[in-house]
């Protein structure tokens, strides 16, 4: 179907306008991160990475970045391992409770993060778990496990039972089949799910805010900076987080795409 040209052009104009209004502010932050500013007037001659330099001169950012990576790595490992084990449990465990189990795992992703975060906070206080990066990892895992689990389970369910039979037929034991057929089949899904988990963990703010101790992650640092007033190096931080998220998203999309 093709539209008459006035409709087609109106459609294009509308799409462009919405793009500018909704996503323009993000671009503004990116552009401004490279220039000096006095009040609201931009000094266009000042192009450079000075704000990035200033950002990294600030010790808190480097530490926050390291924390973000620690939490991200912890979340990836925990969620991918648990996601794989739970997917195997669902598919091959033969348990009548597997449907309920899956529903419970998927729920936290649909809950408001503030509810998840507060519940965790209350629980940690009652039980007396000191808040730290570990509790942040637990919070993030709770959040991302739903997606990681679903991604891996979906891949597992796409495995033709004939491949497993073919493996047995060729003389492979169960353990050998698991290692040579099942795990390779899951591998790319696990990588994709891991990147997804990292991307989600990287910019998670609300749960982190509630369950962290004295440690800051990047989004928390940004939050803290906003509260003490705006400084231009925040544009640099926003740009960095945007860039990282965009790169991770591209990675997830290209990994999740079905193999040729």
């Amino acid at each position, binding site marked *: 179907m093709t539209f008459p040209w006035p409709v087609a052009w109106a459609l294009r104009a509308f799409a462009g306008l919405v793009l500018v209004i909704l996503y323009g502010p993000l671009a503004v932050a990116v552009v401004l991160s490279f220039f000096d500013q006095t009040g609201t007037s931009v000094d266009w001659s000042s192009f450079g990475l000075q704000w990035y330099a200033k950002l990294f001169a600030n010790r808190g950012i480097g530490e926050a970045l390291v924390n973000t990576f620690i939490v991200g790595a912890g979340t990836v490992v925990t969620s991918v391992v648990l996601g794989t084990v739970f997917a195997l449990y669902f598919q091959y465990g033969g348990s009548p409770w597997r449907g309920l189990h899956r529903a419970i795992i998927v729920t936290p992703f649909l809950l408001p993060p503030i509810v998840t975060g507060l519940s965790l906070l209350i629980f940690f206080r009652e039980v007396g778990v000191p808040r730290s990066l570990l509790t942040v990892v637990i919070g993030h895992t709770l959040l991302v496990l739903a997606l990681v689990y679903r991604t891996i389970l979906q891949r597992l369910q796409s495995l033709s039972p004939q491949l497993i039979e073919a*493996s*047995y*037929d*060729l*003389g*492979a034991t169960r353990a050998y089949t698991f290692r*040579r057929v099942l795990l390779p089949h899951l591998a790319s899904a696990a990588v994709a799910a891991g990147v997804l988990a990292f991307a989600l963990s990287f910019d998670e703010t609300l749960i982190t805010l509630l369950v962290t101790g004295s440690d800051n992650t990047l989004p928390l640092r940004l939050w803290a900076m906003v509260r003490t007033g705006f400084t231009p190096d925040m544009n640099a931080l926003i740009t960095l987080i945007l860039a990282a998220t965009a790169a991770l998203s591209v990675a997830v999309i290209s990994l999740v795409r079905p*193999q*040729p």
Partner: protein
Amino acid sequence: MGAIDITAPAAANQRQAPLSMSRPLLVLEGIEKGFGGAQVLHGIDLTINDGEFLTVLGASGSGKTTVLRLIGGFTEPSAGRILFEGADIVSVPAYRRPVNTVFQDYALFPHLTVAGNVAYGLEARGTARDVLRPKVAEALERVALKGFDARYPSQLSGGQRQRVALARALVLEPRLILLDEPLGALDAALRRQMQVFLKQLQREIRTTFLLVTHDQEEAIVMSDRICVLDAGRIAQIGTPHELYYRPASEYIARFFGDNNLIEGRLGPSAAAVRFVETAAGRLMVSTKDQSDVAEAPTGTPVKIALRPEAIQVAPGSEFENHLSGTIRDVTFAGAISQIVIQPSGETARPLTIKLASRAAGLGLSRGQPISAGWRSADCRILLR
């Protein structure tokens, strides 16, 4: 590249003498199989002899795949025994059975190369690299896939995938290879080529093949013996020749050779023949090897199976059966022409005749009167 050189196994052509086929390799004994409430196989008794090419032929849903899965060890019979060289293997897991399967849709490992797929079974057995490599190369050469080692299954055509699946089984040198409709997904020309290839390969490597198909022509071309499965029951077992010339039932007669089926009732017997009263008159049918037919009571409703090519136009006196009628239809199909005649006699059903077109070209046309005849030995009485 990758074309099948069907002249390659020259040695196989020279060895015309049949392999010793007397020794049973695998025996199915009273096999029953049901899924939930549905009974799929009923009392299957089947002996596969060492070195033979046996085909299980049946319509879709008749239980062919289930038979292979029972032998492969992917499912257990509800009752009965599976004997491999005399030993019951029902409780032996699939990975320790001396049989290998070429699956219906190949089931190649998508994450492994062609060589990786073929090497898989050897690796699972812990075969050393330097022993494994030449074996894989030899298996690939045997199926005309030399030089395809590094490709992935997704980069191969259907026919090539099928040959990888074959090489993957061959390389393990099993005593019995199970093939589940291996040619089903190929186009007609390639299928014919592969039929010849598989048959020659089987002779060359002297391995027992159990093939499953729904294609009767394929079964006839390839098999030493055919086992026809009808809704989970064995309808007949025999050489292609036996099934073609001596069908045991109406089902087999319909499956093989496009037989005409003439309804009638048994009449009197004479030496090695029996008369049958039909709408087209009294016909004489040989009862050779059919003691049950010779002994059946007069008046029993039966059908006569009559192969279209056994009917002669304008027959001489050596044909015991004669009838006259009119030509209803003439169809030219290359070397063969098919003629449908309407016998005189109110209720007689039309008969189909197949003639060499050379002979049919004698000015046969629709509406023309015709006389036809056949020998009593060329037709057969079917009690069921």
